[in-house]
């Protein structure tokens, strides 16, 4: 299995080998790839899975997602494990045996509380398993001697529609395309009115057309398999079960736009899928469905490399993804120019979501009318939902666009529902007065995340969790998002710890609107959505935490003296001060 010689891959190897990336390694890699030291250093600092100090022999990353996070089952499992193993969260134990950190959603939301151990997902955590993990680590048992079923990731598919019902033998899509011809194929895609499944909903036919028309030295096809939006795991299932249809969709796109090279950008959390994807690529090359003279057509040459990310939600944004493909930190570019004209290496590039390519394969096989027969006028076809949170059957559900939230809730067995977060933290937070609304680009859009919260959940804590997610994932390029997401997190925290006043709600509103309006990219444009939706639909969640004042200082006089009390070892009555208003 050869991995593409890519900066991210070289750094991953070093991280695996030494458990961190030293300054010497950075200089060596820079020399090896003829890159500036500063670029390698910046990449190491940007991606969450690279460390500049040694991690433990067992390196554990607990997801902090509301669905697959360490609190998903009610108990704080990260605290439990760190106490049992006597290690502080975020640190490496003195003997170097282990380190425990938090990470953003790892896409295991249909499997309860989950973690990555040395990069591999371990699912269905509970207190009992935490005990067992403690023993295995203290006994120094290698991971391959741990119970196998802990690592076995099943897909739960509860409802099949257009894409999941039919079975497409490898090569059928390509043969159908060659029978149709290049332009007819593009016409079919355009007439299907297929829109991007990654969230933004841009017309796929138009995107391919624009890229085909753009001039350049080479054209590229890129599959966005970064799936970082918390609560989304449908691409994980598609990559596992429908890799052929995906690779076929990419190959069809390559033929239409005139590309010879494609990439799958796979999120680092899904590295465990790499062997399967590599094997599928190899198999397709053997079948003549990839490589040179595909299906015997001279000049139909195309191949695909896989580049694996390293823990950065922003790399799902298409221009940040392209920067990352180029071996740089994932900083979104200024647009225009758009990737269709100026993408990978400055050349015309199509970036599409996994599900979009698979839908394209099916459309080429079955025709655009088959597709438009499902869905609504503006949102044709079907959508895969990744349903998680408080319901009886979390998993994958494929619905025709236009389905109501209420219907979805009924079918997955959710009752006593307080709120639904559609489209992940970047999407929309809905209360029950909106459950009649439809899943569709023209109503409630989603890249696939559908998280359910029942009445036992603390909505403010969830909103705070989302705010922390964005503060952690902001790339730091532009002022409003870089500083604003941190201020929003701090502002919410002030209310949660009972120090917030009326004024703090107004302040959250004001900063949220600024972050939404003035940020550089989609991350900043959506980062304040949970707060704005929360203030609008769940104001009581904020209000019940407020003090009765209009304004409270963030600075607390007595708390500020704590350090002085410790230093002087005085903690009597005289060493405490009263805050004004107490």
């Amino acid at each position, binding site marked *: 299995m050869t991995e593409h010689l890519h900066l991210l891959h070289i750094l991953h190897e070093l991280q695996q080998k030494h458990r961190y990336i030293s*300054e010497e390694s950075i*200089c060596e890699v820079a020399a090896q790839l003829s890159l*500036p*030291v*500063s*670029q390698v*250093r*910046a990449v190491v*600092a*940007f991606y*969450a899975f690279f460390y500049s100090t040694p991690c433990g022999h067992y390196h554990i990353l607990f997801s902090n997602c509301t669905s697959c996070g360490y609190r998903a089952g009610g108990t704080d499992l990260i605290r439990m494990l760190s106490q049992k193993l006597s290690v502080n969260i975020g640190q490496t134990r003195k003997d170097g045996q282990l380190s425990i950190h938090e990470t953003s959603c790892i896409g295991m939301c249909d499997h309860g509380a989950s973690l990555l151990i040395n990069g591999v997902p371990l699912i269905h955590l509970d207190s009992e398993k935490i005990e067992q993990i403690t023993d295995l680590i203290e006994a120094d048992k290698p991971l391959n001697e741990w119970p196998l079923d802990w690592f076995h990731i099943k897909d739960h598919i509860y409802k099949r529609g257009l894409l999941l019902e039919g079975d497409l033998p490898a090569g059928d899509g390509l043969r159908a395309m060659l029978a149709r011809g290049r332009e007819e194929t593009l016409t079919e895609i355009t007439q299907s009115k297929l829109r991007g499944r990654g969230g933004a909903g841009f017309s796929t036919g138009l995107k391919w057309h624009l890229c085909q028309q753009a001039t350049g030295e080479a054209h590229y096809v890129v599959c966005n398999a970064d799936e970082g939006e918390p609560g989304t795991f449908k691409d994980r299932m598609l990559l596992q079960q429908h890799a052929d249809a995906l690779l076929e969709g990419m190959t069809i796109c390559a033929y239409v736009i005139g590309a010879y090279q494609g990439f799958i950008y796979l999120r680092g959390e899904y590295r465990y899928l790499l062997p399967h994807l590599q094997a599928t690529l190899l198999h397709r090359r053997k079948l003549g469905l990839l490589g040179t003279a595909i299906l015997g057509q001279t000049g139909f040459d195309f191949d695909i490399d896989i580049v694996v990310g390293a823990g*950065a939600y922003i790399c799902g944004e298409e221009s940040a993804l392209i920067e990352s493909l180029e071996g740089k*930190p994932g900083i979104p570019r*200024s647009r*225009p120019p758009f990737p269709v004209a100026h993408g990978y290496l400055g050349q015309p590039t199509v970036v599409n979501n996994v599900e979009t390519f698979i839908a394209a394969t099916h459309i080429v096989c079955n025709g655009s009318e088959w597709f438009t027969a499902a869905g609504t006028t503006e949102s044709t076809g079907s959508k895969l939902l990744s349903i998680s949170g408080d319901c009886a059957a979390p998993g994958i559900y494929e619905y025709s666009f236009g389905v109501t939230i209420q219907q979805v809730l009924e079918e997955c067995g959710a009752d006593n529902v307080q709120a639904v977060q559609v489209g992940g933290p970047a999407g929309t937070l809905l209360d029950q007065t909106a459950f009649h609304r439809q899943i569709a680009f023209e109503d409630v859009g989603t890249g696939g995340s559908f998280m359910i919260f029942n009445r036992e959940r603390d909505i403010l804590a969830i909103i705070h969790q989302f705010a922390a997610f964005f*503060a*952690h*994932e*902001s*790339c*730091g*390029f*532009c*002022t*409003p998002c*870089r*500083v*604003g*997401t*941190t*201020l929003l997190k*701090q502002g919410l925290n002030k209310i949660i710890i009972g120090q917030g006043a009326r004024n703090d709600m107004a302040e959250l509103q*004001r*900063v949220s609107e*600024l972050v939404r*309006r*003035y*940020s*550089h990219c989609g991350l900043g444009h959506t980062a304040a959505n949970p707060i704005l939706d929360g203030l609008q639909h769940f104001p009581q969640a904020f209000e019940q935490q407020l003090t009765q004042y209009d304004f409270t200082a*963030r600075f607390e006089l007595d708390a500020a003296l704590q350090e002085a009390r410790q230093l002087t070892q005085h903690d009597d009555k005289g060493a405490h001060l009263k805050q004004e208003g107490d």
Partner: protein
Amino acid sequence: MMTAPEPNLIRIDDREIPFVHGETIMDAALAADVYIPHLCHFPGITPQGNCKLCTVEVDGKPLTACTSPAAAGQQIRNNIPELNEARKVLTQMLFIEGNHICPSCEKTGNCALQAMAYHLGMLHQHFPQQFPEREVDASHPTIMLDRIRCILCSLCVRASQEVDGKNVFAIAGRGIHASLIVNTASGKLVDSDLEPSDLAARICPVGAILIKEHGYDAPIGKRIFDQHKISEIGLEKIYIAGAKSDDS
């Protein structure tokens, strides 16, 4: 719209402004003596659009003037209360993100961030101070780097690459932890080929990069923004020359 838009004209607030194909809104505005507040833009250097102060409303949409191409017929709002209020908040964010102790900073009076705060009527920092820990690099014999005042505008990065033909700086790290790094094996300025005459050493809008042994060459009261408003067009030349006491 009643009349077809004039070719190669944009309207900024109440003025019609000509532009040449390929110019940005910022280029056209500056050429016509129209000030759009900006911190990360510098004429002649590729714009990047990170500070967001130059955001204007183009046909109702917020866009950064420094990176957005001018196009015939654009109706642009610039000097309006909503935008200036947002610019003020962004400036406050830049202040609290680092440590800006203006009265004791060598750059006071020559600092674009400070001048911007005055220009926008910013009377206090408003937000909680973040007190980041960022390293000082005093290793270079003639140039000082105090990261605590860096506003991550990347002008030094771009000036070094595009004008000086070197590659001394970069920005590393994510989110609120972003910081300026030096492109040497040691990470120290002393090992770089940066010289005091380089644009990269002089372009810093704040007091993050300072030329050593030139403290208070110009006394307070005779510094750039004691004598000029930041809204005057073309101050860059004075800026680059450094604050000589008789620069005016």
